[in-house]
């Protein structure tokens, strides 16, 4: 079998559409990043101006999110969660949605230097915050040391929990470059793995810190 490292993530089928690309195409066309004149929508952003705060209306407004160092404009309603905006509106489908209730950690991203469940974060609360997602870890086509370590140590089976797991691990390594197994366990306590790959996950994190 191919080593997972040698596999391309976006394999194309004979018809020339990648499965991922097809799925993304379905989700995005109708929503997309807003095309309406920007100034008009920005004006709607504040329903009633007040020195004591801003009041957004119920409908969509254009906001700017800073994701993996890039400023991205996107049209959102106040009720949209960051997880759905990342996935469905910004095509960043690395972040997963499992329980949608803050219990599984599949949607973990780093916001202003701390991990959060993006399914329980409103996109409008992420305005002005530095958001890091799994897509931001790779640099110039090279996976990060942490991602390599997950591959090396078989830190995944189905892979559904992996982006969230890795974001919790990245946050740990950013603060504590040489964690112990206990520290790795504690940092990923909010990430459930339905395949039960925990021992390999902890191994991968500890090894990435060495």
């Amino acid at each position, binding site marked *: 079998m191919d080593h997972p490292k040698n596999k391309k993530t976006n394999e194309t089928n004979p018809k020339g559409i990648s499965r991922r690309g097809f799925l993304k195409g379905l989700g995005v066309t109708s929503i997309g990043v807003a095309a309406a004149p920007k100034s008009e929508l920005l004006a709607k952003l504040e329903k009633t101006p*007040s020195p004591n705060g801003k009041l957004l209306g119920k409908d969509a407004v254009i906001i700017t999110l800073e994701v993996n160092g890039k400023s991205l404009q996107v049209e959102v309603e106040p009720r949209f*969660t960051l997880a759905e905006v990342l996935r469905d509106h910004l095509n960043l489908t690395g972040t997963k949605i499992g329980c949608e209730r803050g219990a599984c950690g599949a949607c973990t991203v780093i916001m202003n230097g701390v991990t959060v469940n993006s399914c329980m974060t409103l996109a409008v609360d992420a305005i002005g915050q530095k958001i890091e997602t799994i897509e931001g870890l790779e640099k110039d086509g090279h996976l990060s040391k942490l991602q390599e370590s997950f591959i090396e140590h078989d830190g995944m089976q189905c892979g559904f929990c992996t982006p969230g797991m890795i974001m919790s691990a990245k946050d740990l390594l950013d603060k504590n470059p040489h964690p112990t197994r206990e520290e790795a366990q504690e940092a990923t306590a*909010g990430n459930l793995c339905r395949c039960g790959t925990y021992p390999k996950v902890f191994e991968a994190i500890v090894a990435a810190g060495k």
Partner: protein
Amino acid sequence: MKKFEYGMAKNLAGAFEFLKESEAKIKAGGIDLLDLMKEGLESPTRLVNIRTVPELSFIKKDEKGNLHIGATTTLAEIAAHSEIQTRYRALAQAAKAVATPQIRNVATVGGNLCQRPRCWYFRSADFNCLRNGGDHCLADEGENKYHAIFGNQDGCVVVHPSGTAVALMALDAKLVIARKKESREIHIADFWVTPEDDVTRENILKHDEILTEIILPATEKSTTSYYFKQKEKQSFDWPIADVAVVLEMNGKKCTASKIVLGSAAPVPWRIEKAEQVLKDKQISVTLARQAAAAAMVDANPLSQNAYKVPVFSAVIYRTICWAAGIDPFAA
């Protein structure tokens, strides 16, 4: 979630201004509120975000030595605060034991105190339980494994969900509640509402009132505290039994104590009978076991939760020992 307007308050005045709308709801970390909204149990027409109010997020000491904690201080900030870890250990332990790292980074202490119960009937839009306006409690005669063993004879048998409430009760905290320009200070014990008083609410807050801060009284060097949460699994979980113990010590003697149980009753549950056992005695494993037995005298388990009684007994005696700095497992 249904559509809502979103007020991003810059200060308390802004929060009160946005709260004038009668269907508006305060949002702090949003962990509880968004869950209820996703389930369709709450559909406010406006959310008022108070996490954007800088004057609600702080930890500071006054000249008398009392510690003030702003209501939107996160559980992670409380758990990591060195003075809370040393002077109010039970609170740091309780904050650290709540949920997951991701949730503690966002959930606020005010929101943790005001969160709604986790009873599965109450939390599901498919059931119309007493607390949701139905005519009877479905857990009382239904699935009640995680429900109350005290205070469960007034209709609804939920347990209070807040872990920090247990520690704050034992530590004699005061709460500051503001409404527009007025504010009042109450003891945390007077904050809770029992099913007997009003089954549709868990605390006294009115729609346009904001819990602004928590005040912990100055402690003596001789005060010690401990919080312990018993879970079913090792990793994160809701408690099946949690306990906070505060001891005032004079040498080896305990002059006064507070013992409070969580996951036991619809409100955080103080056990004065157990406190009496410790009064003016030297703490030992035997005495701690006697106190735990006294704590359970009035327990009234439901059809599926009698197992909680021995669990609580064990957890109470151990937590008393840990608070006193003795080994609960010493022969």
